[in-house]
């Protein structure tokens, strides 16, 4: 099935946003405002719930008009797009979100049509699946490693580089003893959680530079 690549699942969801003339600001703007302030580091709802490698949320205002001779057309609803890349099966993943971050889900999808709330786990899962669009072609550069395995490996790489650099030329018996100790220590160490270390954006792009 094209939604999966190896053990990774590529989820695409389009949830229609409530179109209510009486809402001020409109629901799409309320979503944008909430997302602009939502933590993107280890405090992110996607870090607090298990399994997400990368995810994005996008308010899709409309389709894009590419100009003559194409026809101009417009959507009747705005859609909230969720693009997520996660470990395992869809029901478990959506259930995990509902279990761990129901308030955040409600703050976001509460502006969407027919959203039942994350408090009702099964209703939430059913709702999200009703909004799902099947992926036509999915590419995952690494599709056989879970998120915990990945975070552990990143932590290991740094530790190993340090270990090798600090033990050059050491005589074998001592090297062996220190290596054994290093491995034991590495196993017992806490691994930095998902989303850790995101940095402030510093962007100087734009304009005609190429």
């Amino acid at each position, binding site marked *: 099935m094209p939604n999966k690549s190896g053990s990774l699942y*590529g989820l*695409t969801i*389009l949830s229609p946003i*409530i179109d209510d003339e009486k809402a001020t600001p409109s629901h799409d703007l309320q*979503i944008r405002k909430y997302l*602009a302030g*939502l933590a*993107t*580091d280890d405090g992110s709802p996607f870090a607090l719930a298990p399994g*997400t*490698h*990368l*995810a*994005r*949320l*996008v308010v*899709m*205002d409309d*389709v*894009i008009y*590419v100009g003559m001779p*194409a*026809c101009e*057309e417009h959507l*009747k*609803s705005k859609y909230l797009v969720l*693009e997520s*890349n996660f470990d395992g099966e869809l029901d478990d993943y959506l259930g995990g979100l509902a279990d761990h971050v129901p308030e955040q889900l409600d703050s976001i999808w509460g502006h969407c049509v*027919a959203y039942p709330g994350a408090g009702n786990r099964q209703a939430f899962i059913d709702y999200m699946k*009703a*909004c799902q*669009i099947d*992926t*036509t*072609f*999915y*590419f*995952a*550069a*690494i599709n056989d490693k879970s998120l915990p*395995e*990945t*975070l552990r*490996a*990143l932590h*290991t*790489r740094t530790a*190993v580089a340090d270990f*090798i650099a600090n033990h050059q030329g050491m005589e*074998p018996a001592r090297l*062996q003893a220190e*290596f*054994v100790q290093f491995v034991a220590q590495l196993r017992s160490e806490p691994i930095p959680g*998902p*989303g850790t270390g995101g940095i402030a954006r510093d*962007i*100087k*792009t734009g304009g005609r*530079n*190429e």
Partner: protein
Amino acid sequence: MSNINGKVYAMNAITPMKPWKTWILRGFFFVLGRVKPLQQDLINLSFIEFARWVVLPRRGFPFLGNGQKREELQYDYLLFFSNFNGTWNQYIDAFSAVLSRGLNLIWRWSEKFPGSVPVTPFKNYIAQVQFDTDYYYTAYPRATANDLKSAHIVQTSLDALSLRAQDYTPAQFAEAYLHFVIQVQAHLGETGDAPVVF
């Protein structure tokens, strides 16, 4: 808006297609998905973490009732989502330079697609059909796809050596350790902050 988080860039693009052309595109993706060597160029580019194409038929937009109006569209739409490392220009340049044939097979069915070579009209088209990300999360903002691959190699090699490390004599260990270092020596780059985006 926030198209960038650490070392990854989130690109979204949407292009209109005449519905009869959609079937040709589906056929192409069907083949691409089953013939792995065709995907090799994507893998070799090595700066894409995840990417997907989603064909959204004109009658396929989620409809939930409850006052939502049904879409009335003439075009099907092709959605493209990519999570890549590096700069926007670098990404499009590379696509245009080495994947132009594959890209043309994917997007030539979209209205007004200028072709992926030369690169400037292609960039203008992408810029036109790109829409911005509101919220972008990555579990590993300080790592790229290359970093992840390297890290898994280091982990596997370390696990293999540590399994037997205690059983070796010191001389045997020294030899095994040297082989371990040689296995991982091309994979020891530091993880860290992304360069300033330009």
